[in-house]
């Protein structure tokens, strides 16, 4: 057969591509449930790990069921909160599948960026209405309630994200960071216990106001300072900015939590998104 004829070439291409596409489609459909399960379990694990729960998840043999059961045990409630601190959705069952769990912080980050990009105040407020903030309420083994907040920001090479467990007194119980493509060994070190454990007991809210957490070079000296990663200034600063941005969004809600417990006379809760970007841009 003459394999150089045009008709042969065209038919050959079509058949080849059809066969390959079929194989890929079948495999993709077949593996999809497993992949999504992995993604879900990872998120659950991150949420638990940030509050220093389920810390041996990396070593147990059946991670998926272990994480599921720990998650169901400790995470008793999930909320959707808006920028005004109002709870717009409450979920008590099957939290791993609820809407609050499925909120993509990346989408919220997009809205935040749009808000930064527009000078028009009315447009900003309209955008702010769309922001949905997930809150996971964790019944810690020591009997206290922890509020697990999310965050998402821009690192040096790609997105970074975080889960922060806040106690009722406005202090951090634990934080966890992850990234997509920061430099391994430099910016990538934000995932290490050494870095994240520095956030324990830092103050995010005091007397109804957000207390900034600053990342500094050359050793943290003051109470709310974090020692930056050496060789990864931009990623370290990105962590600082991410926390500042998201805490500003969570502020009204945090005021409610601390207001209801610590100090009845909470300050007026107006969502003030104008001032949440005071951290200097470093890129």
């Amino acid at each position, binding site marked *: 057969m003459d*394999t*150089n004829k045009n008709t*042969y*070439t065209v038919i*050959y*291409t079509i058949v*080849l*591509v059809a066969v*390959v596409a079929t*194989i*890929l489609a079948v*495999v*993709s459909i077949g*593996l999809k449930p*497993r*992949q999504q399960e*992995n*993604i879900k379990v*990872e998120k659950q694990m991150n949420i638990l790990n940030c509050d220093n729960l389920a810390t041996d998840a990396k070593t147990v043999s059946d991670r998926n069921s272990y994480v599921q059961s720990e998650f169901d045990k400790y995470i008793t409630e999930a909320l959707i909160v808006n920028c005004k601190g109002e709870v717009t959705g409450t979920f008590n069952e099957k939290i791993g599948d609820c809407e609050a769990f499925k909120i993509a912080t990346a989408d919220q980050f997009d809205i935040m960026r749009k808000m930064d990009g527009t000078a028009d105040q009315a447009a900003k407020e309209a955008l702010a209405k769309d922001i949905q903030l997930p809150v996971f309420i964790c019944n810690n083994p020591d009997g206290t309630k922890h509020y697990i907040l999310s965050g998402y920001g821009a690192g040096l090479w790609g997105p970074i994200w975080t889960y922060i467990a806040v106690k009722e007194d406005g202090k951090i119980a634990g934080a966890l960071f992850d990234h*997509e*493509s920061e*430099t*391994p*060994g*430099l910016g990538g070190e934000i995932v290490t216990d050494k870095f994240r454990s520095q956030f324990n007991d830092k103050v995010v809210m005091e007397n109804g106001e957000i207390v900034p957490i600053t990342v500094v070079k050359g050793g943290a000296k003051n109470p709310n300072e974090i020692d930056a990663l*050496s*060789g990864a200034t931009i990623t370290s600063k990105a962590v600082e900015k991410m926390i500042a941005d998201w805490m500003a969004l969570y502020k009204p809600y945090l005021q409610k939590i601390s207001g209801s417990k610590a100090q009845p006379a909470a300050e007026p809760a107006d969502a003030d998104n104008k001032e949440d970007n005071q951290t200097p841009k470093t890129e």
Partner: protein
Amino acid sequence: MAMDKKIFTTPIIKANPITVLVLGICSALAVTVKLEPAIVMGISVTLVTGLSSFLISLIRKTIPNRIRIIVQLVVVAMFVILISEFLKAYVYDVSKQLSVYVGLIITNCIIMGRIEAFGLTEKPLPSLVDGLANGLGYGLILVIIAFFRELIGSGSIFGAQIIPQSWYEAGYMNNGLFIMPPMALILIGCLIWIQRSFQKDDDKK
């Protein structure tokens, strides 16, 4: 070429794709910061080179010569996507670490190079062996480089701390340069240098 041991042994040292043919350098710089991703990358590339060489060799007589590169590309891409999907489903952690580099296996010159040079003209079984051996030769270099980069750059092997804490207290520091890609290039250079000094006779041809 008949099936003999040489097809398998030559690409691992004597005609190693990285140190002798100098192919696939980019990924050798990118995924060798830690040992674990380096090993998974080595295995993935081995599978892709072997299987795609095998498949191309099977259909080599039917491929229209004018579009053979595209056909090769489609076959390689198919295996790369399959590997990527399986990694995501079964070793999610590692697939996260490798991130984009799994997809970039397709651009690894070793694969297309071996298909052009071997799979397109030889029988399926030798092609499979040749592809696997080239992948292993590539993986071997990756592991050697990753070993030194992880040991000196992070003080650990497979993520477990090797350098004792007392050394750090005595003033020892991890060498940050080893984490950066340029050092991987220097290491590859050193490997080539070492190998060339033992294989002088080959250059005189």
